[in-house]
């Protein structure tokens, strides 16, 4: 007879994820989460022939999640692991990922540490599920740790949401027997560009936010139906609501009680709670750390015993639970009350555009160097992972040159995860200079460390333009405009060990040359497209002239979205806003656009 494996929760999570078709896993080590990635690496080494998941250590949790998102977009079921405080580091991508949703299933493992065995705090990360409005699964033993990843991936894909898988020290480092299950077959999902879903500029993010709010209510209905949330009948008139290892303590302390065992503990299934109350005369909530479930039950207007007797800090065990709740059994049961179901929250609709007037979304300025780079980039057959700054506007019509915007610095990790998963440069990253210094350096180091192929294009306009031209480490400028040391991106890349070329953003041939060369090279490199923000240089320039006989209104130049170019009746027209940057001249196929001839030297 084959021996049933005796696994730690972390080992079980790893094996359960592989069984569920895991394609990519990464994380930053942190007790008690560390062994998931280690077990995955071990499984890969033991079975080197099988096409197992890509497994990486990341430079930090934020980069880990962004890289995981890239892998999910590329179509691989993905797990990203971290300890509870790691989710603070990854909170930036996590909170907006809740809006964009995923492609292939994406599960974030948060391993909490009640009692602070090996941590600086004991924050209760169930709050993060409520905060981000995403579903949360809480296994209570190794078997569930093995079974739940498959459920989590399915939920993630069905509801287009990341799923928070929450463990605690006693689950991650506890052991139990795990009955293996047949593998799940998972077809890799093709990536499809979807700007309105993945580019979180205000207009698109508002719509995704409405969807996330509506999704939460659908998830609550699922929480009512899912077999992960079980109402277990008892023989005593006492009911206990619990999740995770706290359930196991309560189960031993009160074997005769009724239980509402929550495997999917967010959003809370109100009807199941009401059903428990209909079956017993009093209800306890047993949970470690915060009164997360208790507060929600109280909000239903139901009497409950919880944190007034069960400590809100440290770990629980069966004795603590028994000693805390046993005296409460002596009290008279509370008066029976009907639950008051919270009303479905109203979601404000998108405001209607007044009288169908033409909308005026923000645009790249005339003469903006970003437009010059997009004009070259949009001809390449690569996905463009974007970032946050003026250049995000390149995602809007007519440029449509950028297909993701998640949070500061996310472009590089997402690019790396996507390319690593697909094994080629399927995407490039576009990031501004200030954003690069904010959060682009760590993912570049990570991409180098994990040998992800790709091209990072730093749109270096020598300022933090979108917010009003503030200084940053690359310019050395301070709020009082005093200058300190300025950091050089090329030398930084040299230190990291990544090839870096700097070209004039307006030099069409040079930009094209580097793009062609580096996309073919197939490894990791950086292109700094340098040209100062046009708003910082108001010197008057020559304006582009139109040869009306040559112009056939083909639209190539108008398609650059330059506010200084108007589609006229006979030919394009140039407005006074033209800065003579020449980007339109470069795309014109009929030489209809030109700058006035410079006077010959010496004349």
């Amino acid at each position: 007879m084959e021996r049933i494996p005796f696994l730690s929760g972390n080992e079980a999570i790893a094996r359960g994820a592989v069984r569920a078709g895991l394609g990519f896993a990464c994380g930053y080590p942190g007790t008690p989460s560390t062994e998931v990635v280690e077990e995955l690496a071990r499984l890969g080494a033991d079975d080197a022939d099988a096409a197992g998941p890509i497994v990486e250590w990341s430079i930090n949790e934020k980069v880990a999640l962004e890289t995981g998102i890239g892998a999910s977009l590329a179509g691989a079921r993905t797990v990203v692991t971290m300890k509870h405080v790691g989710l603070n580091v990854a909170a930036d991508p996590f909170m907006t990922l809740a809006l964009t949703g995923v492609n292939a299933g994406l599960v974030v493992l948060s391993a909490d540490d009640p009692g602070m065995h090996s941590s600086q705090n004991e924050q209760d990360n169930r709050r993060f599920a409520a905060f981000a409005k995403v579903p949360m699964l809480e296994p209570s033993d190794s078997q569930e740790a093995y079974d739940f990843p498959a459920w989590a991936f399915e939920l993630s894909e069905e509801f287009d949401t990341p799923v928070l898988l929450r463990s605690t020290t006693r689950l991650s480092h506890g052991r139990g027997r795990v009955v293996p299950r047949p593998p799940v077959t998972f077809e890799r999902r093709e990536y499809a560009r979807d700007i309105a879903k993945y580019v979180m500029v205000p207009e698109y993010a508002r719509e995704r936010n409405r969807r996330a709010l509506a999704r939460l209510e659908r998830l609550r209905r699922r929480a009512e139906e899912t077999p992960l949330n079980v109402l277990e009948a008892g023989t005593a008139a006492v009911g206990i609501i619990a999740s995770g290892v706290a359930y196991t303590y309560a189960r031993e302390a009160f074997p005769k009680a009724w239980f509402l065992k929550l495997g999917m503990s967010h959003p809370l299934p109100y009807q199941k709670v009401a059903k428990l109350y209909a079956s017993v005369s009093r209800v306890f909530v047993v949970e470690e750390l915060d009164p997360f479930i208790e507060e929600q039950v109280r909000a239903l207007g139901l009497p409950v015993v919880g944190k007034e007797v069960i400590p809100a800090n440290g770990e629980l065990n069966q004795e603590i639970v028994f000693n805390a709740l046993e005296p409460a059994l002596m009290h008279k049961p509370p008066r029976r009350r009907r639950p008051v179901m919270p009303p479905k929250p109203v979601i404000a609709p998108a405001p209607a555009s007044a009288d169908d007037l033409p909308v005026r979304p923000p645009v790249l300025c005339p003469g903006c160097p970003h437009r010059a780079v997009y004009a070259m980039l949009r001809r390449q057959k690569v996905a463009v992972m974007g970032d946050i700054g003026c250049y995000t506007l390149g995602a809007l019509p007519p440029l449509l040159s950028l297909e993701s915007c998640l949070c500061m610095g996310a472009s590089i990790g997402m690019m790396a995860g996507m390319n690593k998963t697909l094994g080629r440069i399927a995407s490039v990253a576009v990031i501004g200079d200030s954003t690069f210094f904010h959060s682009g350096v760590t993912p570049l180091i990570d991409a180098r460390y994990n040998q992800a192929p790709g091209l990072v294009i730093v749109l270096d306009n020598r300022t933090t333009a979108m917010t009003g031209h503030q200084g940053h480490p690359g310019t050395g400028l301070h709020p009082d405009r005093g200058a300190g040391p300025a950091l050089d991106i090329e030398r930084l890349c040299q230190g990291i060990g990544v090839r870096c070329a700097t070209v004039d953003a307006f030099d069409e041939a040079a930009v094209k040359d580097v793009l062609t060369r580096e996309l073919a090279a197939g490894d990791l490199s950086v292109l700094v497209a340098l040209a100062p923000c046009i708003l910082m240089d108001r010197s008057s320039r020559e304006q582009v002239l139109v040869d009306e006989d040559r112009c056939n209104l083909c639209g190539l130049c108008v398609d650059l979205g330059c506010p200084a170019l108007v589609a006229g009746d006979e030919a394009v027209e140039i407005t006074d806003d033209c800065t003579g940057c020449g980007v339109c001249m470069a795309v014109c196929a009929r030489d209809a656009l030109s700058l006035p001839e410079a006077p010959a030297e010496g004349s």
Partner: protein
Amino acid sequence: MNGVRTVSLAGVGGQGIILAAAILAHAAMADGYDVKASEVKGMAQRGGSVVSTVRFGKQVWSPVAPRADIVIATETLEGRRALALLGDKGTLVFATTVIAPGSVLRGEKAYPDDMVEAAGARLIQLVPVDAEALAREAGTVRAANVALLGAATHVLPFGSKSWDDGLARVVPARILDVNRRAFALGREAAAVKEEGQ
């Protein structure tokens, strides 16, 4: 609401809406009103639609309001759009400046030309101002926002001294003179128009 009056300033990012709103707010304060104001910055600055709001009265609580009594618009389409903010019988003071948005530049949409009908249907008073011409006359086209503000003085209760106090507090010293000229020209132009009606 409760005698509080709301002025919304609408325009295209980069037209100096925030500066105009600040001058108005300081003029109101100099006139003894309680004032609250709100502005939109960030992404909206890059050539997108922007609206700032100034509210004044005996006591003002909220910095924003869903409806305005007066709209001052530095661009015609944005003025047309802001009709939706005005209650019936409100006043729209707008610059005749036209800045076509992308969809119009590309020929996908038409620039609206129904201002008079749309305003008339709701008894909204229109005050069109060639703010750019006035500003150019004053010395720089960039003072169009302030010229327009000058034209709006006739529908606002603040005294001349209060307006000048607002200008002096908000406008940087090196461009104060040209802005004072633009303001005076705007004020004059609208007065002439009123007499003519």
